[in-house]
């Protein structure tokens, strides 16, 4: 009875996506809002357990597995979808809502998948929907970025599929559960997940593609692909030591890129990678506290990152640019957006009373309890960097810093409403962390607001603020310039182009040579040869003979005579006798040898 009312969350959103194609205007927006809202309520009411078992090609697939881990991701994905749809209300086209809901539905499909095959189907749907969201801006750059995104993710998807097939052929279970990195199949699955998680060296697709999407598309994109990868890592690879170092590197290196980047949406993308790094470290540690930290941080991160993407989206919507060098002084024009931005910045910087403080503190405590001082130092340095680029740089360069270069209006009401709701959730989670503790995978209560901890965090951030002031005073900062910063995508953007040109020169050059040789020269040579074949054979043989014996080459007169004889068929008797003797000698020799 219960199983009959538990609908797969993916199905609800996909049905919503289909429904939006039937409406327009206000009905379209209401239908798009209703799908995640209904899904959220149904998930809240749904019991834990396995639902939606399907038999396909002899395989037993499980479409809906609800447990504490999938439920918390399910909640936040619905919330993010709801807020993303609200932020999108300026879009009139149905395709935006349909693709957005399909994308969110695919992420829910991954989250609630009970087996690797179901997971793979939704994994690829994520790629497909994201590609359309990126291309939806309909500029040349967005189309190119979408194609690159798709190619990279198809490669990652094939890696995952190969891993699943190898895992299965080695007798592995298709159920989605803990895996060990002791077989090629598991390693390929690990790498497939890692690509969507934007691990170092596999991260460039994110920074390349997300800033090219529409302002509302970026809000959706910032949520689902990376966090569904975090979910599957937590599900399958918790406690894998390699993840600790991958995560630490992931948290640290994007900070430097984010500092020099001029496009603030790209800054947010580097920031996204860095924040996901914290989650990956925690998954690598694998203790109950660490997994709780990773999951809670994913929850909080989805909200504050959506908020920051919404703020940047509102700024781009009004000014047409997200370049730091072209912005500044907008605090008078967009007061509501400034407040939301400051809440997002405080949350990502982990200021006490904001969501990031709660969730990052759980991860840092887990790192402390696992006795990893170096990882602790790296993550703390990364959090200082986060405060620099997201806590100070983004609000400073958009809203303060310089005099306003343009006169603009405040963000539209629907955007303000979406931002305010998200900002409210960021503050709520900071003030009432018990709300998160109640839905964590492993029940626990953490005492995070201890005076020593709060003071240590305040010292770290406020003295980092002093550092920022000194850097401005010494005229070291700001140093962003309108430029392209090379990253790993150079290898397939420039490197790929160079490979294409190299292959083009090699094979087309070979083709041209062959054409010159076979079509032009060989045709001419064969025409000349077959004009007088007998004479030419004789001349050729005699020339070789002369060269071997050291005689002089044939004179033009001799060649002329040979050709003339051949043409007229007037050979001296001696030549015929010589040929007969050579023929007889050759046959006698062959006879004796045989």
């Amino acid at each position, binding site marked *: 009875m219960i199983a009959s009312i538990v609908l797969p969350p993916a199905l609800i959103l996909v049905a919503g996506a289909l429904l939006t194609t039937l409406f327009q205007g206000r009905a379209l927006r209401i239908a798009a809002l209703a799908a995640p809202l209904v899904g959220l309520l149904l998930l809240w009411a749904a019991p834990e357990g396995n639902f939606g078992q399907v038999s396909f090609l002899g395989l037993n697939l499980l479409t809906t597995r609800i447990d504490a881990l999938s439920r918390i991701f399910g909640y936040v994905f619905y919330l993010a979808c709801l807020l993303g749809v609200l932020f999108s209300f300026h879009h009139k086209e149905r395709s935006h809502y349909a693709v957005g809901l399909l994308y969110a539905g695919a992420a829910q499909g991954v989250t609630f998948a009970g087996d690797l095959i179901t997971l793979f189907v939704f994994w690829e749907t994520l790629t497909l929907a994201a590609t359309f969201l990126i291309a939806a801006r309909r500029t040349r750059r967005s189309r190119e970025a979408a194609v690159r995104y798709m190619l990279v993710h198809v490669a990652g998807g094939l890696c995952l599929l190969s891993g699943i097939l190898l895992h299965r052929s080695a007798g592995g279970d298709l159920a989605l559960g803990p895996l060990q990195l002791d077989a090629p199949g598991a390693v390929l699955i690990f790498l497939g997940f890692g690509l969507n998680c934007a691990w170092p060296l596999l991260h460039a697709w994110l920074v390349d593609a997300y800033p090219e999407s529409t302002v509302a598309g970026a809000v959706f994109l910032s949520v689902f692909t990376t966090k569904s990868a975090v979910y599957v890592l937590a599900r399958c690879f918790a406690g894998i030591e390699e993840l600790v170092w991958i995560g630490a590197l992931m948290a640290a290196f994007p*900070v*430097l*890129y984010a*500092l*020099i980047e001029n496009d603030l949406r790209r800054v947010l993308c580097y920031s996204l990678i860095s924040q996901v790094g914290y989650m990956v470290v925690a998954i690598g540690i694998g203790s109950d506290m660490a997994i709780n930290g990773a999951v809670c941080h994913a929850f909080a991160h989805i909200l504050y990152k959506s908020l920051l993407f919404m703020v940047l989206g509102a700024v781009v919507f009004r000014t047409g640019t997200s370049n730091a060098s072209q912005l500044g002084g907008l605090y008078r024009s967009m007061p509501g957006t400034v407040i939301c931005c400051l809440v997002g910045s405080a949350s990502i910087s982990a200021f006490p009373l904001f969501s990031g403080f709660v969730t990052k503190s759980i991860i840092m405590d887990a790192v*402390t*309890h696992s*006795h990893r*001082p170096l990882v*602790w130092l790296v993550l*703390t*340095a990364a959090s*200082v*960097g986060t*405060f*620099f680029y997201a806590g100070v740089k983004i609000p400073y360069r958009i809203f303060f810093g310089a005099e306003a270069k343009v006169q603009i209006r405040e963000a539209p009401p629907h955007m303000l409403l979406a931002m305010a709701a998200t900002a409210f959730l960021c503050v709520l989670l900071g003030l009432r962390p018990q709300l998160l503790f109640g839905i964590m995978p492993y029940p626990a209560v953490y005492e995070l607001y*201890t*005076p*020593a*901890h709060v*003071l*240590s*965090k*305040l*010292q*770290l*951030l*406020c*003295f*980092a*603020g*002093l*550092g*920022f*002031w*000194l*850097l401005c005073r010494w005229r*070291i*900062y700001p*140093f962003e*310039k*309108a*430029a*392209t*910063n*090379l*990253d790993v995508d150079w290898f397939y*953007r*420039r490197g790929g182009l160079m490979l294409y040109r190299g292959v083009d020169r090699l094979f087309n050059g070979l083709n041209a040579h062959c054409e010159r040789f076979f079509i032009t020269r060989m045709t001419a040579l064969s025409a000349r040869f077959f004009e007088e074949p007998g004479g030419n054979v004789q001349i050729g043989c005699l020339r070789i003979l002369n060269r071997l014996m050291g005689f002089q080459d044939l004179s033009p007169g001799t060649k002329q005579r040979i050709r003339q004889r051949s043409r007229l068929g007037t050979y001296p008797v001696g030549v015929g006798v010589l040929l007969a003797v050579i023929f007889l000698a050759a046959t006698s020799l062959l006879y004796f040898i045989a």
Partner: protein
Amino acid sequence: MRQEKRSHLSGDRRLMLWGYGLWLISLLLLEFRMHSHAFFPWDGWRGFSAAFGLVTVVSLALIARFLLRPLVMRDEEYYDR
């Protein structure tokens, strides 16, 4: 008139800076009243977090500006050529 406005703003700014300075000093002084568990060697060092925050932010900015930027920065149309 414009001069007056500027001096008024800079006065506000000076006040804010003094306030911020006092806030930082009070954060340092408050630490003398705190006791926390020592997990790592530096947990007992007074003012560690403050120094770490200050040094890290300056170091990151210097590395980003003088090391990473010359290494990776190209003109805006780099990939469009």
